[in-house]
């Protein structure tokens, strides 16, 4: 690898040799743009309104204050919200990975009549704007008696067309002779799914899990629609209380935003390798 690059480099003009170093300039600028809004948000969550208006050019507070966080803490059943969010995002994600992988297995590894139709049907559900199904879904949940319950929050979200699509792509990339071999050994579909396909698709499964968990954790409209009592709210839904028409305390609003992204941010920094490596596989065939 090294030798070949050098060989190619030797034939290049000097300016071309500078190029690889030069690319760090736009990348560096981009990275700064990516990160500054978050630093600023964190800063504002500790600032007083007067400070913010007096020194808008400053990234950090002139004087630190905790009133933004106290405002959130005093008005929200905080631990309950976190618990709900963990239950909602966690259980739903686990179910989604299971159901999506089962469905994707059939679409990728079993030949049957109507397979293409099923696949396009799943793909089509990806294209439905969520807002339009809101009223019919609400009425269905009512008839099921699922409003303001965990099952109402979780089950409609327990499969995702995106996950099926993604896992199908991943399963397709596994050489077919592997399950041929297993089949000769007498393994049924479920065993092939569990013992051949799943172990070989860990990165893709992790990706579906991560992307789903992130989406559910951040979901706002769905929990707001399904739940009606404060004890059932999730964190983002609970935090909307601070965005009233007549009150804007930027510190409180951004403290709320910081709190809601903090758990994910911590998880991200602890497991960034998996996040990034996992998602990297999504584009694979």
């Amino acid at each position, binding site marked *: 690898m090294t030798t070949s690059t050098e060989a190619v480099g030797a034939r290049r003009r000097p300016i071309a040799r500078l190029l690889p170093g030069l690319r760090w300039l736009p990348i560096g600028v981009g990275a700064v743009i990516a990160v500054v809004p978050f630093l600023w948000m964190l800063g504002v969550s500790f600032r007083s309104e007067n400070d913010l208006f007096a020194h808008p050019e400053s990234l950090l507070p002139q004087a630190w204050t905790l009133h933004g966080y106290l405002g959130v803490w005093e008005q929200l059943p905080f631990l309950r919200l976190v618990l709900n969010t963990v239950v909602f995002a966690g259980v739903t994600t686990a179910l989604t990975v299971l159901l999506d992988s089962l469905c994707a297995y059939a679409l990728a590894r079993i030949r049957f009549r109507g397979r293409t139709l099923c696949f396009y049907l799943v793909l089509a559900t990806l294209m439905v704007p969520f807002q339009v199904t809101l009223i019919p879904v609400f009425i269905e949940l*009512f008839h099921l008696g699922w409003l303001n319950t965990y099952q109402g929050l979780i089950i409609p979200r327990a499969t995702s067309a995106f996950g099926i699509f993604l896992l199908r792509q991943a399963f397709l990339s596994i050489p077919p002779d592997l399950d041929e071999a297993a089949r000769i050994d007498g393994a049924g579909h479920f065993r092939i799914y569990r013992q051949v396909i799943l172990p070989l698709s860990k990165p893709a499964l992790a990706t579906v899990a991560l992307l789903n968990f992130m989406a559910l954790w951040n979901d706002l409209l769905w929990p707001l629609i399904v739940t009606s009592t404060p004890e059932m709210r999730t964190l983002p839904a609970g935090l909307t209380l601070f965005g009233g028409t007549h009150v804007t305390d930027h510190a409180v609003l951004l403290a709320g935003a910081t709190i809601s992204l903090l758990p994910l941010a911590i998880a991200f920094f602890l497991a960034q390798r998996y996040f990034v490596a996992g998602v990297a596989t999504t584009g694979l065939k």
Partner: protein
Amino acid sequence: MKKTLAVAASAATVLAALTGCSAGAGGSSGPGGSGSGPVKLTVWTGFTGGDRPGYDQIVKDFNASHKNIQVSMTVQPWDTITQKLPSAWLTGSGPDIAAPSSDPNVIAQYVKTNSVLPLTDTGSGSKINVDQIAPALIKEYTYNGKLYAVPANYATLSLYYNKKMFAAAGISAPPSTLAEFEADAKKLTKPGGKQYGLVLADNQTIQMWPILQWLGGGDIVSSNNCSALASPQSQASLKPWVDMVVKDKISPVGLTGAQADSLFSAGKAAMEMNGPWAAPGYKSAGIDLGIAPIPAGADGHSVTLGSTAPLAISAKTKYPQQAQEFLAYWTSKTEQKKFSLTTGFPTLRTDLASDPQLKANETIATFTAQVPDARLYLPKVPQATQVDANGYVPFIGQITRGQSLSAQAAAASKTINSLTGCSS
């Protein structure tokens, strides 16, 4: 007291669970098989602002004095209520009582879909004291001769001003005439966005521009539901203010209510027209705050905006009697007096208008003094929410961005007339 209640409540829950007669997860007002426990009523409101403690107090007092009815109030953003309530009430899974919107005109929609209960338990004493509630509000909530909601509150807008800025500009008193109002707004503006004379929000806000129009003799929709925007009086009433925004920059363009509020509370704006809910925040932000009536208009009379949120009962509630009892309690003399004192809101009851204790409070007195001059925004105009969103708000947006007043007024009138069904 509170503790006893909590213990009683949890004991009741345990009992219900043991006997297997829990109301079910989705039921907000399950009757329960045994029938001996207190009736449970749920209420949805969107009061997330500084006035929230006032409403919480009413619920608390009600629960303490009504052993047989227990009310729990859920506060969520108005947006959320707007999205959920229609389907929730349609299916009967919603709350027994709700404030569907901060916009009183929204009630029309619920009346049309038969989602709200006509209030019949009216009269004196512990009934809903319709005769003691401001007549304009009762009229607003009456459709086809039936009352469908009571006012959850009633506010007027006053002129908030920053005393320090007035002193620095050499102005000794708040404006009392339209001419002074205009002159002061200009005088208090410093170029380059350093200081704004009068902040004017035009979207996601309590309405400010209609007041300016009314002061100058203009209007938005006339009594026959036709647009009045293109009339000469309307254009004349808007012209000076639009010029001041466009040329003198007395206010940034396109502000939301929250943005205008934060400019004033940060000491970047000298005047703002706003309701009583804003006062506590401005005071705690350290503003040297003055509150004055809206200046007198061209005809020598002051005009301001009246604002009220409706409180209505679901047509499908299992407890229409108890729910009306709650509304009666909410609007009762004692509770409304307490509410005004807590929040600084003017009173919605005529029999409290001259209450000495309320009069002694300067903030309440200022807002109360303007009740006779208050007008509602687009009262009883068909499709009022769309007239606002598709007609009036874009119209103000266009003209404050330098578009031609007459052309935009004609265009907005066309939109509004097609919505209201005005034929002329």
